[in-house]
């Protein structure tokens, strides 16, 4: 691909976004090197590395596989009742704080969970033990199957309808259809989806420790936290972050080596129709897949609901602190989501405009880098620059960290959509002589409103569920909703915490609804 005329603005924008991200991370790491702590990999760290890679690979494999299975079934049924609600639900888990999810998962799979009640009801004699690798995998798939399914469904839905028609005319069998049509569509999305999930699982902390059963289940993220907190060896923490970046970088490079099939794109506003899947067997299969998915990912939400409803809501809603937390979370979330949207837009536009493979590689890496740098490292490094910086500094810092954390998600939504959109409209905008903001307003914004909306609400619910890395900053005013949940839990107030978790889950669900408008409105927006 060669660079085209009239699009250098996009590349400059991408370079600025990239410089911002790399600068933000590098500035955080640099001052930490002044303090003690050496590199070096000992026996214990080696086993931590092995475990980190092993559990992250397994989690990714399962999430991607089942995510694809669900997506294939959902994509094959473009117009069943409740489909849009299913898609919305897929965006809900990502906003939950890890501990809330862990409690939800345990209410289903734990020693006293629903699953064990079923086992004992049928008097099966055995007890299901979730603690260990099983628990880690269940929790990670609870978070990531919906994410994978959502992104894969979008990939399949973007496919040109003419293909499905053609496939129907050719009377392709199930296997041939998968090999020729669905497979390539999934493969195109695979590196991005699998890479994101791998990073999320590799850097998982609370879920791995809480459900892992013991220190044999320790990720590199735990070692980084330990180095920076209990051992206070910031230099070592930086070393471990670099190990994490290199190691995960290798995995991402491996995933990126998958051949990306050339994609042709649907016309905007064309109605989605599928001609396959008419047989009873396929209907039963799709139904079973969707029900199984809903049971697996929905049950922890039901547990959160049941648990939360027991609380004293009037008392809770009368609490000044709750409203302040909600307000802070809302302001932080909105700023973070807007920044994430801006950065992902700049990166996505630059990514499709550049002819340089190296620049493209940097853009991809830059968009994900932050997931590999734990918030505690970023906030400690920035603390040194800001020197206490009470007042607004921590808010801005947390908003930026949250934005960067949400960036990889927003990119996974926006980038494929932008790519196909730009390919489709390049000639149109050239012939109209449109560029820059004019092009953005007239051509891009209306056509990309859906992915933009989805990316925005993805980012919003992610930032809302984020604890906010302000461990060192302090300041009495800094109270976010997830922070309040932890604070209540930390002072015996479990019922309050459960109610707050329910509220947070409800807000995430609301964002998921706003992020995926119903199909009818989509048709109107497209025209």
């Amino acid at each position, binding site marked *: 691909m060669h660079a085209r005329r009239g699009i250098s603005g996009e590349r400059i924008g991408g370079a600025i976004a990239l410089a911002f991200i790399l600068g933000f991370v590098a500035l955080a790491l640099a001052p930490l090197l002044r303090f003690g702590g050496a590199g070096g990999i000992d026996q214990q760290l080696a086993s931590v590395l092995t475990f980190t890679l092993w559990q992250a690979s397994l989690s990714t494999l399962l999430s991607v596989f089942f995510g694809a299975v669900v997506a294939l079934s959902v994509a094959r049924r473009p117009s069943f009742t409740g489909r849009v609600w299913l898609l919305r639900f897929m965006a809900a888990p990502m906003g939950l704080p890890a501990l809330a999810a862990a409690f939800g998962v345990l209410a289903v799979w734990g020693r006293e969970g629903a699953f064990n009640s079923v086992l004992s009801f049928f008097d099966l004699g055995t007890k299901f033990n979730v603690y260990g690798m099983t628990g880690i995998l269940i929790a990670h798939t609870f978070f990531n199957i919906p994410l994978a399914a959502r992104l894969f469904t979008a990939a399949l839905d973007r496919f040109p309808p003419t293909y499905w028609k053609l496939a129907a005319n050719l009377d392709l069998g199930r296997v041939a259809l998968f090999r020729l049509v669905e497979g390539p569509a999934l493969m195109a999305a695979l590196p991005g989806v699998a890479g994101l999930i791998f990073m999320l699982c590799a850097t998982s902390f609370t879920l791995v420790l809480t459900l892992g059963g013991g220190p*044999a289940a320790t990720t590199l993220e735990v070692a980084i936290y330990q180095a920076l907190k209990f051992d206070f060896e910031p230099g070592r923490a930086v070393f471990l972050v670099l190990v994490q970046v290199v190691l995960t970088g290798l995995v991402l490079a491996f995933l990126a080596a998958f051949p990306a099939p050339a994609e042709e794109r649907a016309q905007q506003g064309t109605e989605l129709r599928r001609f396959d899947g008419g047989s009873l067997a396929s209907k039963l299969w799709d139904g079973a897949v969707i029900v199984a998915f809903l049971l697996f990912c929905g049950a922890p939400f039901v547990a959160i609901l049941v648990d939360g409803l027991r609380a004293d809501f009037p008392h809770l809603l009368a609490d000044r602190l709750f409203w302040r937390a909600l307000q802070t979370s809302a302001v932080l979330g909105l700023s973070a989501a807007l920044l994430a949207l801006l950065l992902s837009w700049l990166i996505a536009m630059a990514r499709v405009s550049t002819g340089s493979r190296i620049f493209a590689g940097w853009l991809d890496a830059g968009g994900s880098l932050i997931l590999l740098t734990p918030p505690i490292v970023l906030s400690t490094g920035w603390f040194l620059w800001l020197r206490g910086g009470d007042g607004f500094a921590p808010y801005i810092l947390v908003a930026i960290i949250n934005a960067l954390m949400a960036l990889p998600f927003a990119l996974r939504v926006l980038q494929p959509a932008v790519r196909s959109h730009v390919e489709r409209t390049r000639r149109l905008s050239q012939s109209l002589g449109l560029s820059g903001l004019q092009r953005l307003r007239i051509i891009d914004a209306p056509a990309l409103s859906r992915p933009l909306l989805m990316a925005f609400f993805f980012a919003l619910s992610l930032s809302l569920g984020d604890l906010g890395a302000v461990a060192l900053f302090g300041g009495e005013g800094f109270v976010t909703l997830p922070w309040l949940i932890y604070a209540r839990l930390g002072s015996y107030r479990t019922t309050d915490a459960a109610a707050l978790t329910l509220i947070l889950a409800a807000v995430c669900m609301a964002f998921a609804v706003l992020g995926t408008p119903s199909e009818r409105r989509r048709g109107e927006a497209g025209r």
Partner: protein
Amino acid sequence: MRKTVLLAALAALLSSTSAFAAGKTLTVYTYESFTAEWGPGPKVKAAFEKTCGCTVNYVSVEDGVALLNRLKLEGKDTKADVVLGLDTGLVADAKATGLFAPSGIDAAAVKVPGNFKDDVFVPYDYGHFAVVYDTEKMKTPPKSLDELVNGNPDEKIVIEDPRTSTPGLGLLLWMKSVYGDKAGDAWKKLSKRVLTVTPGWSEAYGLFTKGEAPMVLSYTTSPAYHEMEEKTSRYQAASFSEGHYIQIEVAGMTATSKDPALAKSFLSFMVSPAFQDIIPTTNWMLPAAKMDQPLPDAFNKLVQPAKTFLMSPEEVQKNRKAWVDEWVAAMGAK
């Protein structure tokens, strides 16, 4: 007209700055649960401000360890006059920063088990670590650490990770105090009873109250919260015959304080009844000095350890890493 407005504004500005100059401020670094609405912080602030003619400013960070780290990062530039919320395990590290000044508080004012005495750090409350159990699930709780270690592996306990949490480290030191060189073997046995190891106290206690395990590592004071706030005696602490390891929370004044006299007067206020009366029902710990009010009844029913374990801060500082490594090895080899 305009002039008078300007004058008025100027006057307001002047009066506010002069008020600022007259009032002294005391900056106290502490942890978040201390300054939480339901914590001791707000009441302590109000009570001290009544007597000192000053304003108390809190800067609250995540926990005691974060508190020390923040000081290390700030060095001599720290704005703290008083640092409140370290525990005895952190004292040696804290002294090594050279940022603290001797308190000058008479040690006789303070009464805590375990003979902790220090010329820099002053205790303000304490609690013993204990295994808290659910009486509805467990009829015969362990009566000793040894019974806990060797008991029925099907009756589980949730513990905290010594690499990431203070109670986790507390249990580690407790086991070390009782078993010495054989602690590794004891951990190996105990690991069969450990349901899971959580990053912090909140996760562990949450799992416990959700019924995932009948035991959790917490404090002897935990039952007092349930008794007073939830009116239930369902959760009780098990008394261990060997004795219990203690956590003593301390405060100190910085060498960099601009107003050492004020900082010192806060420390003496801290060991006075006005401060100590607040502690039990807000921090859920035991007072480290005389109270005016009687201790709430729920506290009198708590387990009274026959013996208190406390290692010297220097010993903890020297061995912590080796002991944590030993713990990882023993627990990992399930």
